[in-house]
């Protein structure tokens, strides 16, 4: 196919941005859009000069829709992904893939059965300092990763009101936001085996946790610690990675990355000096390449499911006040 004609389910800011990028990459047209909110729907239809569909089913079954972007709130991913799988349309699903592992399993099974691609937007690993950190490890400069700590703190007005403030739609802070950090920690450390979490809702802006500490154990024997907050006017992002032969620290979305082997000098790179494709363009290119040329996708439903499993473990751990094995949530 020359162009991929995409249908967009859920036309909020994020989904519109993804669709805009697909068009800009020169490989896609937006054929149809759908959203229960009339304002978002009208904005998307006029921006992309696309038809509107009354439902996800209607959109997915249009003959002029080749592939589907699911950009609805996480709580609606299941129904929308199932609709696309039933119509055998390849899918780009925003993260988190679902709000429970059980939902993820249903989506993955439906896509496998239909033989369609399920791509999950775990884009954080592609951001400059995050991607760079993986390469430093791959190149062997600091040995094997053994301990990772990530601090992500901020105050997003969007999380203190609207759909993002409701667990039913957003899933919770660990799902709506930190499924990124959990995926990044897995990207660096490998498969997780056990999770212990303590959470709080300090400012009560949302009906779920606005603060959490999550401790993780990984199959490689290493450990991880995520500190997240959505009630911090003074924001902070910090990654500290301890390896067998050195360490690495970086500032997440800005600032610099530094690493140093025990027996060597420190190397520092500024995010501003790193050139390359925008991370969102890179993930969308990978999705499009996988659809059109059968290329191996950068991440799949499995990656999305594992990140959700880590969050689900944390929620269960906080509820039951005990460490939870990842195998417990994967077994359900």
């Amino acid at each position, binding site marked *: 196919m020359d162009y991929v004609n995409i249908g967009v389910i859920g036309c909020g800011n994020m989904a519109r941005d993804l669709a805009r990028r697909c068009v800009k990459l020169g490989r896609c047209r937006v054929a149809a859009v759908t959203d229960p909110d009339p304002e978002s729907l009208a904005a998307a239809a006029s921006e992309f000069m696309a038809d509107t569909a009354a439902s996800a089913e209607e959109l997915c079954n249009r003959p002029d829709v080749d592939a589907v972007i699911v950009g609805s709130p996480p709580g609606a991913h299941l129904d929308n992904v199932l609709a696309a799988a039933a119509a055998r349309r390849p899918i780009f699903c925003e993260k988190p893939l679902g709000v429970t592992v059980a939902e993820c399993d249903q989506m993955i099974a439906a896509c496998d059965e239909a033989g369609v691609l399920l791509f999950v937007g775990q884009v954080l690993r592609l951001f400059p300092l995050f991607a760079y950190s*993986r*390469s430093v490890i791959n*190149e062997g400069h600091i040995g094997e990763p053994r301990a990772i700590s990530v601090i992500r703190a901020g105050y997003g007005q969007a999380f203190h009101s609207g759909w993002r403030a409701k667990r039913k739609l957003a899933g919770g802070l660990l799902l709506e936001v930190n499924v990124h950090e959990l995926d990044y920690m897995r990207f660096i450390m490998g498969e997780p085996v056990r999770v212990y979490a303590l959470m709080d809702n300090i400012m009560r802006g949302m009906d779920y946790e606005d603060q959490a500490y999550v401790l993780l154990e990984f199959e490689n024997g290493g450990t991880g610690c995520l500190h997240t907050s959505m009630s911090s006017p003074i924001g902070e992002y910090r990654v500290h990675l301890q390896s067998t032969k050195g360490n690495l620290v970086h500032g997440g979305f800005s600032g610099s990355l530094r690493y140093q082997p025990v027996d060597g000098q420190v190397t520092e790179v500024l995010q501003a000096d790193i*050139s390359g*494709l925008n991370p969102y363009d890179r993930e969308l290119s990978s999705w499009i390449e996988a659809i059109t040329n059968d290329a191996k996708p950068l991440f799949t439903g499995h990656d999305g499911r594992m990140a959700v499993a880590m969050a689900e473990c944390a929620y269960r751990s906080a509820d039951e006040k005990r460490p939870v094995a990842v195998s417990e949530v994967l077994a359900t």
Partner: protein
Amino acid sequence: MSVRIGIMSMAHMHAYSYAGAINEIAEAELVGIADHDLARARESAAQFSTQAFASYEDLLKADIQAVVIGSENVRHRELCEMAAAAGKHILCEKPLATTVADAEAMIAACRYAGVQLMTAFPCRFSPAMARLKATVDSGQAGAILAIRGTNRGRCPFGWFVQKELSGGGAVIDHTVHVTDLMRWITGQEVAEVYAETSNRMFGQDFEDIGFLTMAFDKGVFATLDSSWSRPKSFPTWGDVTMNVTCERGVLTLDMFSQNLVVYSDRTGGVSWVPWGSNIDLLMLQSFVAAVRDGTPVPITGEDGLRAVEVALAAYRSAESGKVVAVR
């Protein structure tokens, strides 16, 4: 499955050797050649039984996993950043870049894109060099105290003597090879450089003579003659030699001494024709294996950067007449 490779620019003569090497490797395929000189792309594509692409962008859109960059030195960064953004692994001709900033940007772009960047230092693949390294590593000669190296050659002229394309003359062209070998066998970094240069071979506005004295960070010191001082009538392009003084012995290397001496009335002179190992082929084989297996390339972008830093320090020293710190 074979590793599919494209070549970005045939400006450097080594690119021809690399193209030939790719064609000799069973598990590699030369998918095509792109060049800002379209005629050169077409001619070299015909020579190596592959296709010419109309642009670098077209080549990068083709089904390839890796590229070899053989352009003029100053273009390395641009081509490297393009290839990295397209997700291709890269083997880049030396010197990696003509400025530290360019080399650092290339390394960063490759790390961000998650692709490997290898610097083309074929001398590390010389079996004689490997034997020298193994002898040093075995400890039988004791620790290295000092090294005398040479990398002298005939002047290549062309863009090599146009600073706006090459970044310099003999020093940037020839310092990097033996500096890399010295770093490799000592495990030390060059800390300080004193250099003198001149243009008295050809009397033009590029340096054709360069002598470096280097102090390494853990005690070794070395000298290096990196001149374009072989006359046109010299029987081969040049040399790579090392004399490594150790605590309990001296090792000497003459990397290109495996040759026949040919007297030819047709070419009108004496030439040394190599019969020994093809180090370019060995280097390409190692690059192909790293791309195929996803293992780290043996010579990185940082290795390329460290060697460039020494060459640039040599220019600063020659300019100021002083010993200069490399970093």
